[in-house]
């Protein structure tokens, strides 16, 4: 373990994965909140022709020009989606699908064109499809960190404006904010995050790096700031976990493992988050249902007493069951625990009998006046 943690390659990969997790997590928050989750998918596919063009321009696998090309066509792809939706009758889903598949197709055409050229350096270009974390160099890592710092810095500068434009674009416009410019700026920042992730997870899986941490964070957080921080934390955790597991074996690709780790975080968050979690919601619903059952049983006992002109009429449990068409044993036991009903003496051979206690009667009568 110690040997692994001090391993040079592992350190590089782990740090790269955490940088990616942090920046994709924060920017993904806005993509998810603005219901543009799949824009990242379109951008990452649209980055492929840019990767090829960057390579064609320099003839080398340096990440710099490749990242620049990816940013250019990725951003162009995102703008194409915006343009198609605004200028034509195509809906967002069709625009996204058309843009991502067409840019990708052009990218594949360029890729095969490059592969036909006599240049040994092109060998690793296909790694961008699925990511090739192991090939990450310290220089690449430096570039990733610099891009991430710029993207997060720009976001921090415009935080208040972006926040307002995200939650209330109409009000933002009345305040004189350039909402369209902010939207485009945010899309470009998402494109930067995608470019950072290309080397790590590749074009296909990049969408998940934007979406998963944000969705997981949304389950826990109520405020945008805490959601962004949590998303960054979750993204980094997923990155580190993916890097750790993939170090266990040579066949374990880092990119897919990071995505699976992020998916696990989402599943746990959706299940266990205290307020918005599915388990918490189920428990709340069960508690409500039980409370309702108890109140109805009390009301039944009260009415039975009235019908028999005997406030202390002992009702047999089977009869209460019949009234409710379901088992009331649980509700009666809980009511007994709360001192609302008490067991009554009954003839041998009959079922348990219950009477209302004074407290139970008061509660039942109270429910009647305030139904």
């Amino acid at each position, binding site marked *: 373990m110690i040997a692994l943690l001090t391993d040079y390659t592992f350190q590089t990969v782990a740090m790269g994965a955490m940088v990616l997790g942090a920046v994709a997590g924060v920017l993904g928050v806005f993509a998810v909140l603005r219901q543009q*989750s799949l824009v990242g998918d379109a951008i990452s596919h649209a980055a492929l022709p840019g990767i090829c063009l960057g390579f064609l321009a320099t003839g080398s696998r340096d990440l710099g020009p490749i990242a620049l090309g990816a940013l250019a066509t990725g951003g162009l792809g995102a703008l194409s989606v915006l343009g198609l939706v605004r200028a*034509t009758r195509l809906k967002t889903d069709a625009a996204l699908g058309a843009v991502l598949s*067409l840019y990708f197709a052009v990218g594949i055409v360029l890729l095969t064109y490059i592969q036909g050229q006599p240049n040994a350096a092109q060998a690793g270009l296909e790694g961008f499809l699925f990511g090739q974390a192991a090939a990450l160099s310290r220089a690449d890592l430096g570039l990733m960190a610099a891009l991430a710092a710029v993207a997060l810095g720009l976001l921090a500068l415009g935080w208040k404006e972006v926040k307002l434009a995200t939650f209330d674009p109409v009000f933002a416009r009345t305040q004189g904010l350039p909402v369209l410019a902010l939207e485009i700026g945010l899309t470009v920042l998402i494109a930067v995050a995608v470019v950072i992730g290309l080397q790590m997870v590749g074009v296909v*899986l990049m969408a*998940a790096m934007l979406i998963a941490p944000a969705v997981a964070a949304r389950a826990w957080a109520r405020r945008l700031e805490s959601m962004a921080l949590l998303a960054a934390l979750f993204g980094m955790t997923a990155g580190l976990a993916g890097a750790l597991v993939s170090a266990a074996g040579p066949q374990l690709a880092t990119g897919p493992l990071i995505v*699976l780790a992020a998916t696990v975080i989402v599943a746990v968050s959706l299940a266990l988050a205290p307020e918005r979690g599915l388990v918490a919601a189920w428990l709340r619903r069960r508690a409500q249902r039980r409370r309702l059952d108890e109140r109805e049983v009390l009301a039944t006992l009260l009415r039975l007493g009235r019908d028999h002109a005997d406030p202390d009429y002992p009702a047999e449990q089977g009869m209460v069951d019949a009234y409710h068409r379901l088992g009331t044993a649980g509700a009666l036991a809980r009511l007994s625990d709360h001192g609302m009903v008490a067991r009554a003496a009954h003839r041998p051979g009959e079922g348990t009998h219950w009477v209302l206690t004074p407290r139970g009667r008061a509660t039942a009568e109270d429910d009647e006046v305030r139904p």
Partner: protein
Amino acid sequence: MTLQALFDDPGAMILATGILVGAAAALIGPFLILRRAAMLTDAISHSIVLGIVLVWLVSGAIKGPLQILGAVLTGLVTVALVEALARSGRVKDDAAIGLVFPALFAGGVLLLNLYAGDIHLDIHSVLLGEIGFVWLDTVAVAGFTVPQAVVTMAVVTLVNGLFVLALWKELKIATFDPALAQALGLAPRAVGWGLLALTSGTAVAAFDAVGAVMFIAFVIVPPAAAYLLTDRLGTMVTLGLGISVGASLSGYALALAWDVSIGGMMAAMTGVALVFALLVGPRHGLVSTALARAARARENAVRALAIHLMTHETSSERRVENVAEAMRTHLGWNAARAAATLARAEAQGHVKRDGEVLGLTASGRAMAAAVLEPWRRDLALVED
């Protein structure tokens, strides 16, 4: 040339595969687009990679009916997961898609890495397809040796075509008015699931040829281009088919000429059709909408001139206001716009010159009155 010679010709078989992939995809694409489920294609075509790997691990089959069945199941599971996530209220539709398919795809890629290092089933061909080699893998059909991909794609295209023809009315109503379809007992949800099942089956059949992402292009882009060209569903499906076939033919020719990916070039050519439709579509194209907007602007200018003239017709400033110069000084138009509008108004017979002063003709006055005094038209209707 005998039929067998045709089946033995690599070029013809590559072309046939491309055309069949395009046709099968373009048959179901229009409905996916109109139901706003285009991105489900993206989700399905990626996540069935997991299905393919699982079926291979269990049965050892890389293609064939078992694989198609497995893909249909995986596709439906994908959509069910997306729907369940969206229905939980915790995740929006688009985020649900973006969560489910990368997870399933990542699982598939990992399993491939772990168990399939040495066999033909590699990620590269799954994602990109190898349409250039479809003629290598053949089966015997009715005494002929035919490439497997052509046979599979022909069957899938036939099934898709029969589905669309047989359920045309159901598909149409379920797409445009799900509530009506439900009320009429046309089971819109079942129709929807059937459509997605066919999408999954088509995706896995098309995988060998064009791969996951280019398949999306064939499903979405030709119908999207057709959607910009027509308002009728029947025409949309037919046009989409035509565009698909055209893209396959031209893409193949260009790929040969430039020595690049055949599948990629075919998919890219569907994009050319989309750009073309985007520019010159008769009603929704950018050119025609720009022309219509300009025509409306010109019409409005003439109307504005008529209104201006009518406002001052009976007033004392008539000699100052109702002259050509006032269009520039009072309406704020530049010289070119003023001159063009005046010429148009005269040519259309709404305005006549009386020396320096501009006057309205009967038709010009009627046009201005329709805006300034709309009650007169209503009164005229009453009097009639």
